[in-house]
């Protein structure tokens, strides 16, 4: 089907329910991921099942309230039982959680199979979601003459509640999420916030299970939040990015499910996984590719500087101002392709005269090379003077650090060392390229 077909009469209700469910889960899920409670979402989404079923059995219909109360009780039970096993019985946290939620889930499945199947609670609806029914199952009321899907109304209410609680307790959630002990010492009751968050998770899980199913809720709880943490380092940024990812997953999931004629909730989870994969590779700051590129850029800069250092020292030797032989420069261990790339960049950047093995330095290359050698020798002095490192051991550390000292730092280093003229090997410290006035006596190596 065409993409715009998502907004036609038949599909719009499904789209609304899918987006609302995804956004709901993503909102609470952002906090779960940030608080390292991702698997609690998993546990609660499994654990609420018996509560849902019991609530449903007692009420005898699909009214939200009894199911919600049952599910909240079960969620609280999951959390408290896990906590009890962990704290009092000293069972490893993961195992405690695993025991509790699988047990509850098994109980829920048996309850469904034995008792609920005869009263219109379809197990596959609970487990895997039936968002497709959204178009048929409409709310009894109407907004401007349009009857929204029943579950959309529920989801909208729950979304409003979640949003309201988070907006109202923004600071409290922020602090308890990142520094629970500080929050406690300020009287913020981090345990209470923890319980509140679990309650919201349960509420959201129950409201969303019709759309995405109780197992796939975990995908919508965890994946958008994880995408958010890849894209932003700020809480608001994480939440907004998670919302964006949730909407994207819902829209694309629905579209691809209709195209492939298969389960919407399944494709929503897969789409979320796809969005995550893209974020994992391309996220500007934490993504894999930018990270590799940054590392490549750094390697390239180091190789370039090493080449310039070698050329500068060669120049120093032939135009001999110093009476001491300059130290050897670039080590041979840079991979050949990096060296070629670096030489190419030096040539294009106008730092050397030609793309040959040992080109002559231009004025610009000379300045960069001089800066590098200056940093190198100043650092050697620092190591020798302040840390009493023997002269034979100065070169290697200096060779590594020279790439990471900026101009300001170098200037202060020089002042701290009382503007030395020679390094511990007796080699001359080259003048800073711009600061000629400060050291007029010193003649720059080339005029």
């Amino acid at each position: 089907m065409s993409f715009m077909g998502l907004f036609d009469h038949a599909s719009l209700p499904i789209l609304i329910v899918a987006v609302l469910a995804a956004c709901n889960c993503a909102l609470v899920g952002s906090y779960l991921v940030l608080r390292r409670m991702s698997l609690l979402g998993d546990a609660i989404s499994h654990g609420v099942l018996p509560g849902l079923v019991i609530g449903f059995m007692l009420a005898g219909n699909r009214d939200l309230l009894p199911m919600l109360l049952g599910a909240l009780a079960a969620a609280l039970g999951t959390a408290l039982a896990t906590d009890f096993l962990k704290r009092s019985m000293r069972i490893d946290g993961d195992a405690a959680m695993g025991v509790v939620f699988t047990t509850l889930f098994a109980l829920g499945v048996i309850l469904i199979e034995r008792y609920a199947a005869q009263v219109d609670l379809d197990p596959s609806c609970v487990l895997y979601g039936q968002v497709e029914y959204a178009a048929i199952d409409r709310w009894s009321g109407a907004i401007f003459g349009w009857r929204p899907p029943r579950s959309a109304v529920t989801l909208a209410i729950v979304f409003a509640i979640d949003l309201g609680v988070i907006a109202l307790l923004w600071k409290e959630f922020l602090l308890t999420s990142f520094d629970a002990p500080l929050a406690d010492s300020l009287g913020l009751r981090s345990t209470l916030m923890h319980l509140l968050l679990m309650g919201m998770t349960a509420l959201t899980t129950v409201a969303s299970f019709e759309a995405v199913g109780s197992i796939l809720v975990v995908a919508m709880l965890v994946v958008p939040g994880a995408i958010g943490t890849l894209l932003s380092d700020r809480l608001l940024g994480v939440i907004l990015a998670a919302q964006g990812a949730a909407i994207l997953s819902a829209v694309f999931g629905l579209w691809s499910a209709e195209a492939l004629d298969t389960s919407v909730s399944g494709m929503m989870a897969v789409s979320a996984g796809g969005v995550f994969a893209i974020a994992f590779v391309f996220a500007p700051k934490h993504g894999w590719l930018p990270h590799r590129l940054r590392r490549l850029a750094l390697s390239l800069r180091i190789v370039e500087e090493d080449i310039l250092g070698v050329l500068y020292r060669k120049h120093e030797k032939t135009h001999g101002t110093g009476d001491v032989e300059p130290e050897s420069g670039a080590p041979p261990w840079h991979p050949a392709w990096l060296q070629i790339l670096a030489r190419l960049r030096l040539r294009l950047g106008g730092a050397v005269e030609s793309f040959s093995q040992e080109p002559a330095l231009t004025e610009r290359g000379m300045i960069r090379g001089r800066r590098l050698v200056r940093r190198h020798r100043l650092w050697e002095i620092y190591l020798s003077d302040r840390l009493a490192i023997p002269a034979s051991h100065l070169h290697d550390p200096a060779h590594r650090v020279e790439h990471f000292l900026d101009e300001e730092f170098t200037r202060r280093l020089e002042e701290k060392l009382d503007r030395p003229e020679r390094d511990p090997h007796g080699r001359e410290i080259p003048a800073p390229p711009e600061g000629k006035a400060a050291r007029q006596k010193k003649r720059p190596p080339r005029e």
Partner: protein
Amino acid sequence: MLGLEYNTAVVLAGTAALGLAAGSTGSLALLRRRALLADALSHATLPGICIAFMVTGSRSFAALLTGALITGILGVLVVVMISRRGKIREDAAIGIVLGTFFGGGIALSGIIQRRGADAAQAGLDSFLLGQTAGMLLSDAITIGVIALITVALVVLLGKEWKLICFDPDFAGVEGWPVRALDLLLMLLITVTVVIALPAVGVVLTAAILIIPATAARLWVDRLGPMLILASIFGVLSGSVGTVISAGTAGLPAGPVIVLSASAIFVVSLLFSPRRGIIARARSRVAQRRRQERRRLLGSIYEGIEESHVPMIGEAELARRRSWGPGRMRKHLEKASRRGLIVWGSTGIALTDSGKTLAEKIVRDERIWQQYLLSQAQIDRDLIDLDAAEIGQILPKAMVEELEAVLRAKGRLPGAAAIDTETPGGAS
């Protein structure tokens, strides 16, 4: 009739062998803290099962399990890859893989279903929540044989895995191939999960690894016994679950097997002799009684010491211990039943054995107080005087030195001189 029973017996043997394998590999998974990774793994097998079905077009047991194995391993690799970069923590990575892979599986099974492969679809459905009733004889045998190979591997390499479970750094320093062993263990867990799928189902397979092992951990502290016990629990839950589910129509085997394991877990939780809830409650009560007896005797002794009369009135004792009259009466009754005090209408006196005990209690306490006053740089809460003799805590020479100080002050119980110097407020 006979054939059917024979069939059931073989399926039963298969699930029992499965329980054996799940118990032993589950123990290792638990100790290596891979419990919930097993959950992600089992959910990640679903797309593999579906793809295998779509490719081969048949419900061939071997093909489906091979598919499950492939995506299961893929899922684990993705978890490792995501969490190794550091930004996404392992728990989130597990959630991501679990949700996404399972979603993929549901979508694929939807595609299969809508292609109209209904009969076979029923076969796939049984992989979600497990089905032993429809299991073929050859399938049960396959499961059983692989399970037994798994157990044999655990027995063979148990010692090495024990080392990497408890101290992987040390194992590395000692020159063990930690990564290879870890990988092999992960593979073993994967294989166990995969052969558990037909009986327990994708959604709950992790439980059959986690629950028996966790229950066994409540009873024992050593790996060997834990492996054996977990295997027994696994066999029990596997076979009981199979029998119940086979005897009840419409009951998927997975949840029943899991609930059988949970029942064993609950029993362990209650009755384990050292870590069980009942045993712990009893020992807590006993400890509190001992502590209260110590306080009672200590107060009586100090009252007698101050008044120089070998007897203390109830009112005076009540002043020293802020206990209500009912509680005081209870404690006094208990102590007199133990023959530690004589409780008459005029007051309370210590018997000989009570005096000896009270002297020791007060002496230890004062030495401890003196130690804390003069040389303590440790947190006194770290030491539980109820549980230990003073001689076990402090070196002998120091005890003698402290005793000398107390004797000089006339505060050493059992020593002749009794002084009226104000006692400290130790409890």
